[in-house]
């Protein structure tokens, strides 16, 4: 479905890249100078913070006082049971502008980790990566690339991967060139009350099991909230509930580098499910996302699926997807890319709009009962102004607006219970 998305975007992206190149050369030069002249205060702050991270013991609370600090080297923590606490997401700012060593702003490889009330700005790579750990709490953290959306911004803002029992709440991520909040290959996850803006993907739950995503606001991203399954990874994801979020006007041009999973997401996507299973989308306010308010798609539509590079046991079909009880408004009126524009015009006319939900049309041909997936594996859609089956498998030749195949319901998923409950 996204096949031609890149083409139209390319010209803009190329232009942007040229400007960005020139600017980044200047910036790099400035950055270099800046790092070379890092103030004595900043240098001793950085060295002290590194020392605190090295010396931390289980139970340690590292308090970072209010202030704006420039750091030139990525930080890391490898001790269980540590809390890092600032004075507020607008008061304690760790700026990595001019960073010379990465790869992240802060890398954590530890259990029972809490970080709260501070900001990490302008990291060259990912801002906060937590790689392997259980009982992770991120509370009141702001991640921001301060020059706005640019493909040279770091990829991920808040990035727990291979973690268990994860809470991300009351945080803000702005400007990530991939996903603002990205929870990957993890289990038992709550993402709530966050604000994500001007990222390629606002929130992305990938190859994760048991996630609740609620009370978030996603706007001005390329895609608001994504639930994806990628091939070749340690686990396939399933069981994500996306509810009571505000997902509106996610129409920023896709500024991810090609090849990144999210580079295939058309600008103007509200909630996107790709190749994931057991996803429930309900009670959200989803509005004015110009490609479609909800997109349900398979890995075939990303243009990365090939036999040599994808594990044979990978299942690219989204199964057991339930969309109901959302409040939709607008959207679908200006889809990204020539192919989707043509499709829209063909089915709904030049001035028409895609309906609230667009499905790319890929269903597992070996997994059908009377022409539909088995009852518990179906895509069930209620309370929308329509569904478009785009007929991706046949080059969008025979799209269908018939909603009958989607008139069904599915057993509801249980809420995610964090255990232990974090005490923030």
């Amino acid at each position, binding site marked *: 479905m996204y096949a031609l998305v890149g083409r139209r975007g390319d010209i803009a992206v190329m232009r942007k890249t040229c400007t960005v190149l020139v600017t980044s050369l200047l910036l790099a030069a400035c950055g270099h100078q800046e790092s*070379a002249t890092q103030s004595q205060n900043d240098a001793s702050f950085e*060295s002290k913070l*590194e*020392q605190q*991270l*090295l010396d931390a013991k289980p139970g340690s609370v590292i308090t970072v006082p209010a202030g704006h600090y420039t750091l030139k*080297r*990525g930080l*890391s*923590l*490898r001790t269980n049971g540590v809390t890092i606490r600032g004075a507020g997401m607008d008061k304690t700012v760790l700026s990595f502008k001019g960073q*010379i*060593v*990465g*790869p*992240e702003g802060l*890398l954590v*490889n530890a259990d029972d980790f809490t970080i709260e009330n501070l900001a990490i700005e302008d*990291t*060259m*790579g*990912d801002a906060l990566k937590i*790689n*392997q750990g259980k009982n992770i709490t991120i509370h009141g953290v702001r991640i921001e690339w301060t020059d706005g959306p640019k*493909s*040279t*911004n*770091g*990829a*991920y803002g808040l*990035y727990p*991967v*291979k973690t268990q029992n994860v809470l991300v709440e009351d945080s803000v991520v702005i400007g990530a*060139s*991939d996903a603002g909040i990205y929870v*990957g*290959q993890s289990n038992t996850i709550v993402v709530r009350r966050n604000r994500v803006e001007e990222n390629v993907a606002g929130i992305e739950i990938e190859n994760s099991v048991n996630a609740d995503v609620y009370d978030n606001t996603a706007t001005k991203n390329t895609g608001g909230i994504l639930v994806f399954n*990628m*091939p*070749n*990874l*340690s686990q396939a994801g399933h069981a994500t509930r996306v509810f009571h979020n505000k997902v509106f006007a996610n129409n920023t041009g896709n500024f*991810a*580098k*090609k*090849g*990144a*999973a999210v*580079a295939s997401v058309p600008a103007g996507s509200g909630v996107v499910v790709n190749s994931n299973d057991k996803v429930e989308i309900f009670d959200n306010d989803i509005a004015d996302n110009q490609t479609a308010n909800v997109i349900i798609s398979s890995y*075939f539509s*990303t*243009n*990365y*699926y*090939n*036999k*040599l*590079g*994808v594990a044979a046991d990978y299942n690219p079909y989204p199964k057991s997807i339930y969309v109901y009880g959302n409040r939709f408004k607008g959207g679908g009126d200006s889809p990204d890319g020539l192919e989707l524009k043509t499709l829209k015009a063909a089915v709904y006319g030049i001035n028409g709009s895609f309906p609230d939900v667009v499905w790319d049309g890929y269903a597992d041909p070996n997994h059908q009962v009377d022409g539909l997936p088995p009852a518990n594996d179906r895509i069930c859609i209620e309370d929308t102004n329509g569904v478009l089956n785009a007929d*991706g498998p046949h080059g969008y030749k025979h799209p269908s607006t018939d909603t009958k195949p989607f008139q069904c319901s599915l057993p509801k998923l249980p809420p995610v219970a964090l255990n232990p409950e974090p005490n923030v």
Partner: protein
Amino acid sequence: MSMKLWIRMTWLLALPCLAACHRGMEPVAFHDDGYPPALSDWHVVEARDGVLQLNQGVVPYELNTPLFTDYAHKLRTIWMPKGVSAHYSATDTFDFPVGTIISKTFFYPIPASEPRNAKDVARTYDTRRDFAGQGLNLANVHLVETRLLVRRKNGWIAIPYVWNADQTDALLARTGDVQPLRLISENGEREDFNYVVPDQSQCVSCHARDWTTRALQPIGPKARHLNRDYRYADGDENQLTHLTRVGYLTGAPAPADAPRNANWMDPHASLDARARAYLDINCGHCHNPKGAANTTGLTLDISTPKDRHIGICKPPTAAGQGTGDHFFDIVPGHPDDSIIPYRLSSTQPGTMMPEIGRSTVHKEGVALIKAWIAAQPGECVVLH
């Protein structure tokens, strides 16, 4: 422990050192706790009389293919207390006993074209002027840092030391260091770069081969890296044989029966063997089924089958801007469309691979990997 106390202890230790000491060096000191403030507190290698000298029982070694670190040269040594030895493994790091001290000194030859200064260093693969006996000739080289890996009761610990301006001793640098240096090639080409000494926590980034247990391990001392000859004081000998002979290693088979990685620069080795050896030592410590990069589905250690696991037509997982607009890690026959050489050619944090440990591009290494990808058969046919 305070600096003063260390000095006093060193002084106390110095008393019994009479004629028995090696070239006037006190015996190697294994510290089972804490962070001694100076490299000289360990008496493993010491700068004396214009030479970085190895103490008695300190055995130097080399790897078939080494990790690239901004063209630095490296002197690696190993020491063990009397009466204990490491146990051989065909695939993994040898099982070293408590008390083992491994050192790695990073240094550069002084460029012939420049008067000696604190910034200019030579970019060369020529090591002939580096040595004075088994040690390093300090008239010809500039020492940057010495990293110790110490096997204590609770496991390995990494301790970084940075050489002082006078090149007389290296001082503890747990939070690492950044030194602006300039590489000067034999053809006069100059390249400014920041030599980065990793902080103690970053040591773990590479040395924790398993990110669940988070236990540190040396990377180099594995059979396949060590299985080669070394020029010892008493002549050339295979390193596995030598380590066995001096009592540091048990259970090793004859060298011919032990695995052996290629030397990445060996013109007689196959392209495949050289490229795989290069990926193994530069990438395999993270890109293995238990390492930090097991989140990516890309494995690059020597045992990886040559299919999607090593990146053939594999879409990236979380490369972000590191894709460089490319779709697959390796596009057979098309190195310039492949992500791996793109990331090896970058020096931007967040894009570059390896993620840490270099600030310059290893041009010859990139050329090797590109040549290898160019020689791979197959096609990434996208399914719709």
